[in-house]
């Protein structure tokens, strides 16, 4: 038994910050609120660093028991913290990126109302996310899972006076509920069949079951249900629809929650549950297909988006699809690797986009940007690095992780690889499109910062201007990470580090078999694809800026479909929302609620009224009448008693 590291401090520190800001923030100055939030978030990060330093000396997996939670017969659930390599990676990503985004937020949100509220929510999110990551059992994980959903809801709807933000929050929450429903059923199945929710016990029990290659067994069911949950949280097809709308939230929120951390919880969960998936290949195949489809699907939509954050949102969905594809081919460590690098460069992208938005006074439409290169050089530079990273240009971080995934996908099934490669092309294309539309050409925006959708205080933009240092520092750190973050994966070091966690499936052994020739040729092809995307984007948006419109016109209906996100929202509205609303209105509301429940209540009341109307004549208010009734009743009782006695 290794000494206690007081892991509980890691989630609790941000909670304390959230509590302080939530309860007392209204009376504190902005500086104080920011200091509190940064202090506690930073303390958590420091704690994680301390854990990382001590990591080598720990016996793994390292669990720390805090308290009993549920004790019901044979069924136990504890408050327990579980630490292994996977957890450590997640902890570092969450607290590290989280801390940077906190710093950034202090600058970004400095002009906003509800400053304390924002940081209270942000710290609350950190608490739940760390709870999720550190959980020692599925139920505790579920708390974190729901908690980050709550924090996400609160933060998407941060500008709750804006109707679109409020409904985006609701949409995220409701769509997540669908996924959570699957997660919950998976938990129930575990309780029923394994009698426990503890990771160790569940995985031990699962690993003793035979691999379900055919059919639809217990583990397949659990796996699929977990995947439903993961699809909800991580915005996979068909439950991705909430994520683009979630961009209504403040940009740091999009960076932290909807790019770097929360949306990757699904990936983390699938990776954590890899024992179950390893024994359910069919479920794993579903994961891979879902991931692949999502990657392609979202990338195509991303191509036609004009809102800078929407592009990034679809990009996120697409990248998450990559991660699921990796998990689906049992390359969990590749998925986690991509998760990490993605956290760096996508966080950076969002923050840089935020910086851009900040620079142009709240404008998000790329068509009204352009030529910002000279106004915001640091932002341009960092965003450029992030774009190179996501596009998969070596030696940036995205190259290593994405290449790893594509390689493993090829090994599993070349179809995945083909689609993945095409997606990589699209990714490269739309990311450079974003870069070119934003930073090249001429500035197409209005001279002054009007039409302020986020309620930014109008700080009199003469022209776009660079963000303050407090925002740029996180950008630069993340840029460094995007640049060099992938290098730890060179030579499979990252995979070896995570090896003990995933060292159960034979599928992961394939990596060793692969020839270096194949690997290198695939690598070259993906780099070429990325370069192609870059070139096409340059061609269309820098060299011949009128061409895109013509292509769009020639594509006609397809382009329209892409612009309208394949009408998925409308499809859902028609398929689910409308029938639900209609059914609720006509059947549940008018039929059940008004027709049965209200009617029962009202009819009872009316019946009582009628009976009372009749009985009221007895209640004349005359004392002697009442006495008469009592006397008659007493006589009846006496007669009955005597009759009973005589009989």
């Amino acid at each position, binding site marked *: 038994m290794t000494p206690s590291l007081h892991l509980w401090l890691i989630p609790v520190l941000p909670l304390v910050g959230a509590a302080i800001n939530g309860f007392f923030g209204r009376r504190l100055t902005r500086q104080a609120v920011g200091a509190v939030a940064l202090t506690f978030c930073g303390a958590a990060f420091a704690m994680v660093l301390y854990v990382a330093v001590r990591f080598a000396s720990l016996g793994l997996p390292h669990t720390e028991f805090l308290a009993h939670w549920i004790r019901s017969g044979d069924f136990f659930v504890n408050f327990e913290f579980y630490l292994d390599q996977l957890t450590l990676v997640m902890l570092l990503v969450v607290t590290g990126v989280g801390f940077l985004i906190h710093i950034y937020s202090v600058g970004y949100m400095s002009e906003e109302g509800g400053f304390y509220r924002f940081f209270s929510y942000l710290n609350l999110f950190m608490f739940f996310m760390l709870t999720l990551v550190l959980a020692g059992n599925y139920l505790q994980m579920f708390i974190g899972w729901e908690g980050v959903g709550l924090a996400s809801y609160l933060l998407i709807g941060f500008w709750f006076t804006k109707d679109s933000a409020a409904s985006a929050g609701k949409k995220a929450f409701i769509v997540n509920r669908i996924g959570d429903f699957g997660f919950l059923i998976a938990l129930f199945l575990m309780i029923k069949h394994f009698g426990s929710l503890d990771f160790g016990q569940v995985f031990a029990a699962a690993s003793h079951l035979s691999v379900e290659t055919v059919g639809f067994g217990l583990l397949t069911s659990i796996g699929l249900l977990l995947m439903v949950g993961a699809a909800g949280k991580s915005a996979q097809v068909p439950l991705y629809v909430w994520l683009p709308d979630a961009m209504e939230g403040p940009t740091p929120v999009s960076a932290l929650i909807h790019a770097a951390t929360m949306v990757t919880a699904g990936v983390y969960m699938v990776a954590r549950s890899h024992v179950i998936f390893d024994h359910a290949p069919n479920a794993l195949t579903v994961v891979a297909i879902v991931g692949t489809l999502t990657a392609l699907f979202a990338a195509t939509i991303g191509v036609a988006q004009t809102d800078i954050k929407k592009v990034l949102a679809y990009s996120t969905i697409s990248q998450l699809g990559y991660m699921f594809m990796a998990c689906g081919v049992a390359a969990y460590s590749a998925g986690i690797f991509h998760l990490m690098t993605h956290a760096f460069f996508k966080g950076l992208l969002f923050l840089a986009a935020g910086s851009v938005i900040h620079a142009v006074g709240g404008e998000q439409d790329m068509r009204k940007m352009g030529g910002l290169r000279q106004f915001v050089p640091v932002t341009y530079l960092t965003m450029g690095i992030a774009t190179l990273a996501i596009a998969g240009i070596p030696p940036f971080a995205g190259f290593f992780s994405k290449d790893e995934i594509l390689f493993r996908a090829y090994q599993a099934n070349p179809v995945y690889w083909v689609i993945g490669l095409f997606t990589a092309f699209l990714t490269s294309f739309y990311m450079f499109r974003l870069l070119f539309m934003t930073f090249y050409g001429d500035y197409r925006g209005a001279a002054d910062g009007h039409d302020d959708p986020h309620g930014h205080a109008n700080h009199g933009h003469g022209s776009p201007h660079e963000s303050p240092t407090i925002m740029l520092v996180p950008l630069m750190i993340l840029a460094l990470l995007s640049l060099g973050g992938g290098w730890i994966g060179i030579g499979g070091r990252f995979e070896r580090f995570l090896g003990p966690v995933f060292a159960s499936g034979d599928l992961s052994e394939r990596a060793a078999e692969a020839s270096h020739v194949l690997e290198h040729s695939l690598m070259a092809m993906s780099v070429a694809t990325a370069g192609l995307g870059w070139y096409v984007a340059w061609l269309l948006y820098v060299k011949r800026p009128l061409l895109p419109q013509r292509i769009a016109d020639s594509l006609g209906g397809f382009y329209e479909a892409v612009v309208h996100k394949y009408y998925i929202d409308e499809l859902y509205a028609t398929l689910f929302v409308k029938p639900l609303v209609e059914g609720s209105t006509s059947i549940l509301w008018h039929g059940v609620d008004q027709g049965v429940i209200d009617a029962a209540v009202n009819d009872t009341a009316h019946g009582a009224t009628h009976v009372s109307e009749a009985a009221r004549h007895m209640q004349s208010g005359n004392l*002697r*009448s009442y006495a*008469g009734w009592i*006397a008659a009743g007493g*006589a009846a009782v006496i007669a009955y008693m005597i009759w009973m006695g005589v009989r």
Partner: protein
Amino acid sequence: MLHLVLFLVFGAICVAGAINLLAQTHPISSALSLVVVMASLAVEYLLLGAEFVAVVQVIVYAGAVMVLFVFVIMLLNAGEEERTKGSRVAMILGVPGVLAGGLLVAWVLLKRSETGSVTLGSLPGYPKTIGNLLFHDFLLPFEVTSILVLIAIMGAVVLASRPEAQIPPPGKES
């Protein structure tokens, strides 16, 4: 024999007083009839040996309760009873019901002989024995009753006292 005669005489006075209570239209006559009933009941108690009960009956009922009634009748200057027709139920249902119930009880009492008979003063209720019973076996009820009386006193004071603000201004009658 003496017992039976006394019982019948005072029982007759009792019933006569009770019926007179019903027959009289003026409340003060009814009240005096009730005093008569209570006094003769005290005699019936004496016949049964309950001398303490009898004396207390006179002191409490005749001497205090009924004086209070007379006092209130005088205070409110209650007049002759009005012959209003307020309730048919009381006449049609109540009175026959009472009579029927009473007759049934009487019939049962006369038919069943196991109730037995009592001799003159067969159970002497001396103050001492009653007191012993009251302060030992019935101590809790006794104390509870004392609280009841206390509450009743306060209630009576509150109810009967006339708050200055509630005196209706002249001319405003409902």
